[in-house]
């Protein structure tokens, strides 16, 4: 249908509008009055002409003032819209059955069959004048048309089914783009939507009611399902080394009462524990793992229910999570044979650290001292609890320090073998010299001697001549002593001399326990030696005078710390395998990322004295967790890589903008060895997960979805149907009062005010009137 309309391009404000109209009306009214009043000498035709010219002028002025234009439109009738929303999420691919023993059919196939059966109903909709629009929805909705609409083309792969968002998109449709009013919605789904069902206050119901149209729902699921699903996971973000942490998993079982399988806990792909699992009749069970991590670091743990034959899907049988294992307070045992300045210095250092739980036992009095004492003197001395320390509690210590300790004089000789085993089992041991212990051969037990890099069985005596230690090549590289070389102190000329030395010899087995001498006496014997026997670490310091490195008139300060502090803090970090001993650290801003979210990597490089180091070249890469180690010859899939150079604060960073699929990854950073730098292995590693936003396949039983669909239909005045039993209605519930509408198919605008015609008319009419008045003698 063709039609035309006059359209004003500019409408002044109320005052302006009134003035303009009033002016035009007055002008025309005055002209009309003049026309009616006879004027001698002016003919009626002339008066009519003047009136006509006035009117044309006023109208031309109005056309210009209101920017009038003519709109020529072609329109057609348009009926109300019926929108069909079809669920395209991954849960629609789940196959279930009406009853046990019946063939399981994927839910999406059920919907497609319904669509084919309902061809007649769809034809009836069109005959009623309904405009049918079909959309599929997952995380977002997308319109289908043509063959895709006819066949109801669904992939059933979307990672989420956000019906609330789909309804919001419907509500946001621009009426100027599509004036067809929405009259009803039909939802084809299993009801397992993305957002939590909150019953009556479900935001989905609120959004549906706000849409203001009836929503008819068609449930695609069936009651009988065969599946085991890991639905919920309870695990802390942190755990503490050697402390028991609990990881719990809730498992939902359908159609498998009594089925036996096992639940596996993995750490970085390696099986850590397994628990047998029997599917309960009730459908829900919880499996718990208690683990005591044996080392610090960041790990990807995964709990998996091993699949059972016939499961609808195995995608919901496992879940991964990242746990950072930290060290709890360091528990250190410090035993000293006599009080002296070296004992004091180490005690002060350890006591200053709030992360250290220090248990100290110093022998303040010998047997002969006791003999001379007044027995009535009130003493604060307590018995040395050897049994408790070295038998019952030995394993609870992270670090044991035997400081100038005459073990045999205090009934500790019987426990020396236990100390050796403690080291083999992962403990850290420090043996410090002086006039006892090493000097007097107080550690003769072979199991203890076997884990120490020097011969501690033979008494060494004590030398008290002052000397300057020499840094070995190993000492230049090792984190305990590398700061000496990097600070230019390796000739020891700026450092205080030491005046106590136990001339120990290297043990015959020192190579077998990975030992190294970091400092040596000028005569060549080892002064500071380390070893890594079994799973433990040992440090032997054949001097009781390192306290002088913290107390001297001209003591050099290195990066704000005393040499004594640097030596011992480095030693303790190394002994405890502390990540803080790492000179290269790598962090991610989160342990878990949603699919597509940016991932930030941050690295920090430290000098041997643990100060930030600038201009350090660091190679980095991101690869799937469990990829073959570099150099192993196995295929490595590098997903992203590059080289950084640290800034003035020793930092470097990178942002990875999505691109990683769901899974576990590791980021690795490695310091590039320079020409002047030995190839010390400095590598840092962080693991992280990429996960989907929702838990689409977390819970797949159709029952809760059916209930939600029913509530949705009831709340909006729609109908609740089932795909396997019903067909689409030929007369779906629609919003009442919706008649056919009108649609503008095409439009052509002709501006009246801006063309030359309007101006010509204005000039001719107003000018013509003035000329004519003058001619006939009118004012």
């Amino acid at each position, binding site marked *: 249908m063709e039609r035309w309309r006059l359209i004003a391009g500019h409408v002044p404000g109320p005052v302006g509008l009134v003035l303009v109209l009033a002016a035009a009306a007055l002008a025309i009214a005055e002209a009309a009055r003049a026309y009616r009043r006879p004027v001698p000498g002016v003919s009626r035709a002339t008066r009519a002409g003047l009136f006509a010219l006035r009117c044309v002028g006023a109208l031309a002025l109005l056309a210009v003032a209101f920017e009038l234009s003519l709109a020529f439109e072609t329109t057609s009738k348009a009926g109300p819209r019926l929108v069909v929303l079809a669920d395209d999420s991954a849960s629609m691919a789940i196959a279930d059955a009406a009853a046990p023993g019946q063939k399981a059919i994927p839910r999406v196939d059920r919907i497609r069959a319904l669509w084919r059966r309902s061809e007649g109903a769809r034809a009836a909709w069109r005959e009623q004048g309904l405009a049918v629009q079909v959309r599929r929805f997952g995380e977002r909705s997308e319109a289908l048309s043509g063959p895709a609409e006819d066949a109801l083309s669904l992939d059933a792969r979307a990672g989420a089914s956000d019906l609330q968002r789909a309804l919001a998109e419907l509500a946001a449709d621009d009426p100027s783009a599509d004036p067809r009013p929405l009259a009803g919605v039909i939802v084809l789904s299993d009801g397992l939507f993305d957002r939590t069902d909150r019953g009556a206050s479900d935001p989905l119901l609120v959004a549906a009611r706000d849409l203001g149209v009836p929503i008819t729902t068609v449930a695609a699921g069936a009651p009988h399902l065969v599946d085991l699903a890991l639905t919920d996971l309870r695990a802390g973000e942190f755990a503490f080394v050697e402390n028991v942490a609990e990881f719990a998993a809730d498992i939902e079982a359908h159609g498998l009462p009594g089925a036996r399988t096992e639940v596996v806990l993995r750490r970085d792909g390696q099986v850590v524990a397994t628990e047998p699992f029997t599917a309960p009749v009730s459908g829900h069970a919880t499996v718990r793992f208690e683990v005591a991590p044996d080392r610090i670091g960041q790990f990807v743990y995964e709990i998996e229910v091993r699949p059972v034959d016939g499961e609808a899907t195995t995608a919901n049988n496992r879940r991964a999570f990242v746990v950072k294992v930290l060290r709890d307070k360091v528990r250190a045992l410090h035993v000293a*044979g006599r009080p002296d300045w070296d004992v004091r210095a180490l005690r002060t250092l350890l006591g200053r650290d709030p992360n250290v739980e220090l*248990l100290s036992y110093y022998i303040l009095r010998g047997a002969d001292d006791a003999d001379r004492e007044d027995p009535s003197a009130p003493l604060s001395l*307590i018995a040395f609890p050897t049994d408790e320390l070295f038998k019952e509690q030995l394993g609870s210590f992270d670090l044991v320090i035997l400081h100038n300790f*005459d073990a045999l004089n205090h009934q500790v000789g019987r426990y020396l073998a236990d100390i050796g085993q403690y080291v083999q089992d992962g403990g850290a041991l420090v043996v410090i010299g002086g006039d006892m212990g090493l000097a007097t051969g107080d550690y003769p037990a072979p199991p203890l001697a076997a884990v120490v890099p020097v011969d501690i069985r033979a008494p060494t005596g004590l030398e008290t001549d002052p000397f300057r230690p020499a840094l070995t090549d190993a000492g230049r590289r090792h984190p305990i002593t590398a700061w000496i070389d990097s600070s230019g102190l390796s000739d020891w000329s700026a450092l205080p001399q030491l005046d106590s030395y136990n001339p120990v010899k290297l043990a015959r087995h020192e190579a077998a326990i990975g030992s190294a001498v970091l400092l040596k006496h000028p005569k060549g014997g080892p002064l500071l030696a380390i070893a890594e026997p079994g799973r433990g670490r040992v440090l032997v310091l054949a001097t009781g005078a390192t306290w002088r490195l913290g107390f001297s008139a001209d003591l050099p300060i290195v990066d704000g710390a005393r040499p004594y502090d640097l030596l011992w803090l480095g030693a303790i970090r190394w002994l405890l395998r502390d990540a803080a001993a790492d000179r290269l650290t790598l962090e991610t801003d989160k342990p878990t990322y949603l699919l597509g979210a940016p991932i930030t990597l941050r690295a920090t490089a430290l000098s041997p004295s643990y100060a930030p180091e600038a201009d350090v070249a660091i190679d980095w890469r991101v690869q799937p967790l469990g990829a073959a180690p570099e150099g192993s010859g196995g295929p490595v899939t590098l997903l992203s890589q590059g080289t950084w150079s640290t800034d003035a604060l020793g930092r470097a960073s990178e942002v990875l903008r999505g691109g990683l699929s769901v899974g576990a990854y590791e980021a690795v950073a490695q310091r590039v060895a320079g020409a002047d730098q030995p190839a010390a292995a400095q590598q840092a590693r962080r693991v992280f997960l990429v996960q989907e936003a929702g838990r689409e396949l977390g819970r797949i039983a159709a029952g809760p979805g059916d209930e939600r669909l029913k509530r949705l239909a009831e709340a909006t005045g729609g109908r609740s149907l089932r795909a396997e039993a019903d067909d689409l209605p030929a007369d779906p519930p629609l919003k009442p009062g919706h008649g056919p509408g009108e649609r503008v198919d095409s439009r052509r605008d002709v501006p009246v005010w801006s063309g030359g015609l309007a101006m010509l008319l204005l000039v001719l009419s107003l000018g013509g009137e003035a000329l004519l008045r003058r001619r006939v003698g009118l004012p």
Partner: protein
Amino acid sequence: MTSTRRRLLAGAAGLCAAAALRPARAQPGLFGPFGDDEFREPTAVLTVDLPQLQYAGKWNPRPGAMRELAVELRLRTRLEPVREPSVVTGESPALFGTPFLYVAGEGGLPPLGAKAEAALGRFLDLGGMIVFDAADGGADLGFERDVAALLGRILPGAALTRVAADHVLYRSFYLVETPFGRTAAHDHVLGVQEEGRLKALLVRNDLGGALARDEGGLFTHPCTPGGATQREWAFRFAVNILLYATCTDYKADRAHVETLLRHRRWR
């Protein structure tokens, strides 16, 4: 026959001699698996010095006090002080030979000079401990006043305050209630506590006066009012000071507190 017997006797003598030359200490495996818990004496000892500060003034009002304290420490504890404690000046490098310094005075403490005071400040900052001993025994406040002024210069912002009666100083070896010296004028000592330790201690009961002996071996000064009993308590407090200096707050460790409380040996 005679040569055989002589040979036998010679052989027996040789065995005895070999046995006599066997080392005094047990070797592993000879007397039990690990030599058993046999007493072992160090052949050389790690000693600690008890240096005293020498300055232009009455720096040594109680000669020999530190030597006597060294003796008592060796007799009563496992500490092994040197037999003759050293004397150091504020400007000598030897000041940093030991993180402990004894400063005695009577009537006053003259200014030590900028260099010496700077050295003493660094001495304390690096972890050293200074014990000031007023030989007045409470009769004159001059030394106390000058010590407070010195500490105010070398430890700006620090204040000499009363050391609490439950401070670990009073139980670092003996359980001491009153810091007796030659006198009993004060029932407490003053100290500068920073960074969790006593950096400086001011004893005002003339501790050195209770310890010092004359050349004849007799105690130089009588202790009043408690006599010999008071002197013994002065020695005990002095021992406590050195055990605190070497072990710091060891006796405040939870394990020790709990044990002492359990055995009701400490209030």
